[in-house]
């Protein structure tokens, strides 16, 4: 009997079917004895690898004296598509020169509304803000997602 004909016979059908089923079962059986890939998340915090570029939340780095680089220009606030950032400024007068300039009073960031598009970071002329890797941001109350970034 030719192969093609055998395929179409009653017995041929059964043989091919059973063979394909056993092939499948062989794959799962092999997997049964293979090392598993599950990651035990909260326990493996120490070994967990979070890529450096991962965007978890916006932060404003401060140096050791507690100063940030923000000049309160408001570009980030302007460029944000969702109105996530709101900046309040106050005016201080420089004692020496007598000139007055705007400084940052409060930098409020709404993590709950942020869509991590990175436009604010891209537009910042002083690199005062950046995205950090702290991804465990779950809270029980929405209001706690509104974060003051400057110290």
């Amino acid at each position, binding site marked *: 009997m030719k192969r093609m004909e055998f395929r179409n016979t009653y017995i041929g059908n059964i043989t*091919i*079917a059973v063979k*394909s*089923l056993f*092939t*499948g079962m*062989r*794959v*799962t059986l092999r*997997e049964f004895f293979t090392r598993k*890939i599950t990651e035990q998340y909260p326990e493996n915090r120490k070994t967990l690898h979070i*890529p450096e*570029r*991962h*965007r978890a939340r916006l932060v404003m780095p401060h140096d050791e004296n507690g100063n940030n680089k923000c000049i309160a220009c408001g570009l980030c606030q302007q*460029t944000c*598509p969702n109105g996530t950032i709101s900046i309040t400024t106050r005016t201080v007068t420089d004692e020496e020169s007598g000139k007055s300039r705007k400084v940052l009073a409060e930098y409020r960031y709404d993590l709950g509304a942020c*869509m*991590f*598009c*990175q*436009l604010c970071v*891209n*537009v910042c002329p002083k690199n005062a803000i950046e*995205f950090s890797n702290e991804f465990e941001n779950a809270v029980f109350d929405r209001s706690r997602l509104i974060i003051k970034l400057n110290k």
Partner: protein
Amino acid sequence: MEITFIDIKEFRQTMLQHRENGMDFMREMIGMDWNKEGLGAIYILENSSTHECVELAVRTANREKPQIPTVSDIWHIAELYEREVYDFYGIEFTGHPDMRRLYLRNDWVGHPLRKDYDPSEAINPIRLESETDEEAHRVYEIEEDKHLAEMVEKLKILHYDQYVINIGPQHPATHGVLRFRLSLEGEEVRKVDIRCGYIHRGIEKLCESKTYPQTLAFTDRLDYLSAHQNRHALCMCIENAMGLEVTERVQYIRTIMDELQRIDSHLLMFSCLAMDMGAITSFIYGFREREKVLDIMEEVTGGRLIQNYNIIGGVQADITPGFASKVKAYCADQKKRLKEYYDIFVNNVIFRNRSIGVGVLSLKDAISFGATGGTGRASGWACDVRKRHPYAMYGKVDFKEILHTGGDSYCRLLVRLEEIVESIGIIEQLIDNIPEGEYKTKTKPIIKLPEGRFFAAVEGSRGEFGVFIESHGDKTPYRMKFRPMGLPLIAAAQKIMKGCKIADLITIGASLDYVIPDIDR
């Protein structure tokens, strides 16, 4: 893009003429509101064999009761496209068999994409009661004396004596919030009525008020499984309009990332098809490898699903130093794993019996419905944008366009799995030769496009993804339209699901591989 305006009286004649001249694929239909010049639509037609395109437009000055003759009998897909335009612009297409809203609720007041639309909440408050389904198709006809007039005909969509069930909007197998209303006879599906819009976010309307860089973030949220390609299309469209050349390095990176995204999407398609058919183990095997793709992408872009990688003029950040080696290791592994998928699922007799000859989409229908991507190629339609209108590096790399002729669920899966191999091939050709250069070209802080209309298309994970921009020279687009990859697919689904069993309906849905946020936008 140069468009030709057709007089409304000659419109149907001209369209029929174009169809006869071989323009069998309606690439895109864009509803437009040109303020004083009236409401209308832009049609992009393509000859599926010569890939020659024409751009046509029609408009009517009547803002109170705008009516345009339908072309839904010429191109199947126009049926849903016209419903979308009706929904957003209120243009009634005379002769259309089913002029209902497509996305918004039946009781919505006004047509939101019109420029004179009033979005105040007093008109459309947040409604807490459920929407009632429309029971009949609505049809507008041209009367004998050639005056356009409304004629509402009562054509029942589904009858009460039928066994009607709802698949969705919350259903495990619709992969999102899509709703099929089915009328059944035993296990057999008699009629399918598709309701979209449960995740409609009005992205196109939103884009009209956002600057160009701000619109980029939305594309990742359309079809989240072709986030890269979507954003690539939009960036490309804006760059073309600005006349901005991106460096070769950027082209390489974009191409590689597009292909990685395609592998990711196809793996997910395999997995979800398996899961919808009850083979949960195969699902997890697919996801095991998909995880590796996502890891690679996260390393480079910082995101797994929403990647934000392409920006106007380049990419967000240069590739990481270990990128090439990781990708190569992954590619080598994936090829081995594919064999496993065939063993456990694809060649399995149960799957073969359930998918071969099920949900056959003929070549003619595939083109008429505009079902591009893997679905179209499974029906034998060479519809790959990468071959039709090469962009980025695709003109220079060597890859095969996978074509099958069965048009059934089985072929649709095979096309995807074989495309994974092709994608790996493309990546392997490029990964070692990424040229040095800038990873982004500096742009002005405020991007303004010159006046005009622009269209760019890429091959997304499940079909042609196009971006249309009409600019009036501002920093925000006047109109931005995304060609959905999924809408033609569900339009085709509506047809091929008829007469199959409920179980097949799920298989067909999964094998068409639509993503709802892309349909609903």
